[in-house]
């Protein structure tokens, strides 16, 4: 492996880690605050991708401009799902929410399949495929833009959770439900906001992914798994952990992918299981 090749792999990993951080951000928030592993997260991502795709296809909206709209639609959907369904079983044993979100993912993916067909789609703009080179390393504009958007959203969420009233209420609820309730936090509303923000972030991730990789309705499952892996690697608890987890995952994925492409998923999962056994709180997480 030459130095130039190594540099390209490194840059690819950095570019990938930005978008993966956004993929896992909402998932990590919902898990950390509500203790729900949202298996429908990938389906939300796919919905975001379809919103961007159709806005671009039918109305010629630039994909980067459709991100806020995708976020808004998913935010609303997330709010509704939380209020109508998940809130009803949130205190039930883990398996209940696990299966409920799985049922939702089954439902959403099948409906997308039914209405939009299982064709492989991608958003192609005039600037798709263009980029610049630094030495022997190529950097596509879209990937750089996606990294920028991801960083802005990650930083924005970190600021929101730290500095706003609702943000603090969300964190307080995640730390201690009963204590938060005693101090006057409306837990149901906080949960709904949390889930809605998580879905909104998934929508943004989907918008960005639609420009980078071709997608179809069944793509969601892989992204849910990746989000999970990232949360495990980084640990739950704050936004920085998600970024660390995404960076580790991206580097492992890119390097293993360059060496053993056919076994990349098996290797990634094997690493994950070993890590889970050695450090169940994640690499960056604090021990319980």
């Amino acid at each position, binding site marked *: 492996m030459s130095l130039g090749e190594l540099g390209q792999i490194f840059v690819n990993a950095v570019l990938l880690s930005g978008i993966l951080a956004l993929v896992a951000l909402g998932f990590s928030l919902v898990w950390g605050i509500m203790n729900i592993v949202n298996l429908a997260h990938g389906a939300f991502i796919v919905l975001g991708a379809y919103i961007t795709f159709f806005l671009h296809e039918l109305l010629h909206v630039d994909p980067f401009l459709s991100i806020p709209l995708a976020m808004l639609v998913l935010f609303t959907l997330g709010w509704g799902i939380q209020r109508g369904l998940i809130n009803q079983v949130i205190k039930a044993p883990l398996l209940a929410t696990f299966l409920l979100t799985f049922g939702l993912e089954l439902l959403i993916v099948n409906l997308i399949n039914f209405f939009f067909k299982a064709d492989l789609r991608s958003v192609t703009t005039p600037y798709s495929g263009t980029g610049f080179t630094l030495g022997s390393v190529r950097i596509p504009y879209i990937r750089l833009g996606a990294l920028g958007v991801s960083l802005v959203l990650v930083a924005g969420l970190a600021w929101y959770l730290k500095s706003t009233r609702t943000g603090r209420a969300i964190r307080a609820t995640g730390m201690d439900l009963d204590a938060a309730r005693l101090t006057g936090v409306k837990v149901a509303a906080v949960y709904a906001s949390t889930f809605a923000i998580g879905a909104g972030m998934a929508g943004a991730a989907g918008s960005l992914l639609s420009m980078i990789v071709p997608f179809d309705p069944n793509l969601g499952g892989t992204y849910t798994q990746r989000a999970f892996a990232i949360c495990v690697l980084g640990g739950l608890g704050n936004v920085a952990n998600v970024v660390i987890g995404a960076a580790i995952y991206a580097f492992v994925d890119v390097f293993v992918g360059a060496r053993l492409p056919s076994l990349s998923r*098996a290797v990634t999962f094997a690493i994950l299981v070993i890590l889970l056994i050695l450090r*169940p709180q994640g690499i960056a997480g604090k021990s319980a």
Partner: protein
Amino acid sequence: MKKGLAVLGTLVALALLLALPRFVSSYKLLTYTRFLLLALTAQGWNFIGGYTGYAAFGNVAYFGIGAYTTGLLMLGKWHVPFFPSLAAGALLAACVAVLLGLPILRLKGHYFAIATLGVAEALAQVADTWDSVTEGSTGIDLPIRSDGEFFYYTALGFVILGLFTTWAFARSKLGYGCVAIREDQDAARMLGVNTTLFKVAAYAISAVFAAVAGGITAYQNVHVTPGDFFRIDYTLQMIIATIIGGVGTVIGPVLGAAVYQLLSTYIWGKFIELHPTVLGLVIVFFIVFLPRGLMTVIGRRRKSGERPFKASDLLANVRAHRVT
């Protein structure tokens, strides 16, 4: 009195199932065989997921191991008969479950669930890549046996065996220990339950059931591929069937499998394209309204003074778990 009624009901159901192949077409018999095989996997999942309370999401791995072991032994240079092959598959699945269970059963909650999911995923990829043994994604072909009744009665035999095993398990030291682990693992350990041993045992038993079902399915389907035999759908089906019937009960998984197969077959026929949507709705309905399954509707015990199940209890189930 109530208990006698339950036993009588079970006996009548069994008699009907035994006589069934005389009355239905061979095509319908296939559906019933599928129901029995699903019931078998659900019975297996019930040990680890129901009694021990560990959300195992990778039991399809043992289904696949059973299918491949049975298939490979019956093929090629060995030509081992079916039942010894099936037993070998079950044994291998149990060994793998013990080896994997020792590390991953230390995990809790979501982490355990995803670790098992990962194991299933990794095994599927191994089966897909290990060309020299599994023939990769092309798969292997078993000897053909087009005798529907043979598969039906084999599956029925194992389901009945499964009922007895579950019944005995629930009344054994092992079963009580597993339930104690489900309710409070630390307390169970303090009372002297060897938690690791009990959890691994329950996990291995569940693997044996999945492997037997996998072996029978492989022989019946003739063609075994990683794509067909490591599908996460199978894991979900066994979990959903158990939940529909009632987790941690003896008859629950079989009852749930019957309801699931009935719904599935009916929905298949009516809305082929929207099948997963309706399935998703069924899952959502059961989780929200009947989280503890149909057995809570049927099997309310008189002696503990509970009144019979009413429709209003559906809403009470919802109210018990929601946050306001």
